[in-house]
């Protein structure tokens, strides 16, 4: 092998170095894990869009989690980082509302340098009132940054 050809080959990794060091990095802040309830009709046993108006609030915060949503077939709600329980109030109108209680364990989890830390939860118990909610069935008790169906929330409906 000629010398200049040999040294030319030896310099090729510089190209690799150049390409890898110019990679774009996208930064973002911590990702929030959400618990997802899919709305199911107790009559037809399918996911349906319900309510002309739905407002969701939680105890120990002034924030409204969902404000006057309509025609939605699911809700995705945050959970507190520091507590191991949460109380949600689902208000369908000024007079009608349900309350849902969740208890859980949690642990802060490092996802990646760019996506940061996310709180992971494991649901222990779920309880609720029965004004419009018929039942709540747990589908997946593990809650992480990948949103998926955690609960099926059955509502009393008529055909």
């Amino acid at each position, binding site marked *: *092998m*000629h*010398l*200049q050809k*040999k*040294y*030319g*080959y*030896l*310099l*090729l*990794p*510089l*190209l*690799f*170095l*150049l390409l*890898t*060091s*110019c990679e774009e*990095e996208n*930064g*973002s*802040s*911590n990702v929030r894990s959400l618990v997802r309830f899919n709305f199911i009709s107790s009559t037809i046993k399918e996911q349906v869009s319900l309510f002309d108006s739905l407002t969701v609030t*939680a105890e*120990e*915060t002034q*924030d409204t*989690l969902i404000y006057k949503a309509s025609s939605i077939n699911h809700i995705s709600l*945050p959970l*507190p*980082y*520091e*507590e191991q329980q949460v109380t949600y109030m689902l208000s369908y109108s000024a007079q009608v509302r349900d309350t849902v209680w969740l208890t859980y364990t949690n*642990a*802060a*989890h*490092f*996802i*990646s*340098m*760019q996506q*940061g*830390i996310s*709180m*992971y939860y494991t649901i222990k118990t779920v309880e609720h009132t029965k004004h419009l909610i018929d039942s709540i069935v747990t589908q997946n008790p593990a809650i992480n940054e990948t949103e998926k169906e955690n609960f099926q929330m059955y509502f009393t409906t008529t055909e």
Partner: protein
Amino acid sequence: MKQRKKISKCISLLLSSLLFFSLSLSAQEKKKIRFKRDIKPEKVVVDSVARTELYQGLFVGIDLYGLGNKIFGGDYISSEVTIEVNLKNRFFPILEIGYGSSNFTDETTQISYQTKAPFARIGLNYNFQYKKKNLSYLYLGFRYGFTSFSYDLSSPDIEDEIWNTETTYAHTGLQSNAHWIAFVAGIKVQVYNQFFMGWALRYKSLLRVKDNIQGSPYYIPGFGTNNGSTLGISYQLIYQF
């Protein structure tokens, strides 16, 4: 600020690459105007008898890329020694032993990661130039790598904007281990007497890494950033015994 740093790093790398290539080209141009009688023939070592024997020698090398990685903006520094046996100039069983460390803080999220641990890889290279009389090697190979290590992860307090709380996140001594395979393609050429230089591209794929609930390791000594699979490179200075 971060992007400007990246751009200036890219420009400096580009300039240094161009400088290397222009030096190489100018050296070639000078050679063109020399008379043929002035050019000394390249020293070629031919030992046809020895090449038929099973044991052809031993290579011991050090990786320069892992040592220089931090200078070029990498998240880690790694040093390793390779021991390679030449069998019939065709098969090269290889053992790579090294020490990798990372002490990295992300500029955006301010998450810090620290680890340092030894690692080992074993494998085999196959030289496609086994019939050539000159001392250059073009090879494909595979590796199996493993390491056992502990790591530290910390972050600024995690703010819960809805319930107005802050959660601390700092974990030390999280235990992990990892196993991976790699496919290697590279060259190795004689540069002076018993000294060789060479580089290899490596496609690495994780077989298993032990996770913790607090988070997976960001960097795995000997493997690199904890992606399922990744491309890597080694640049070696080698001595033949």
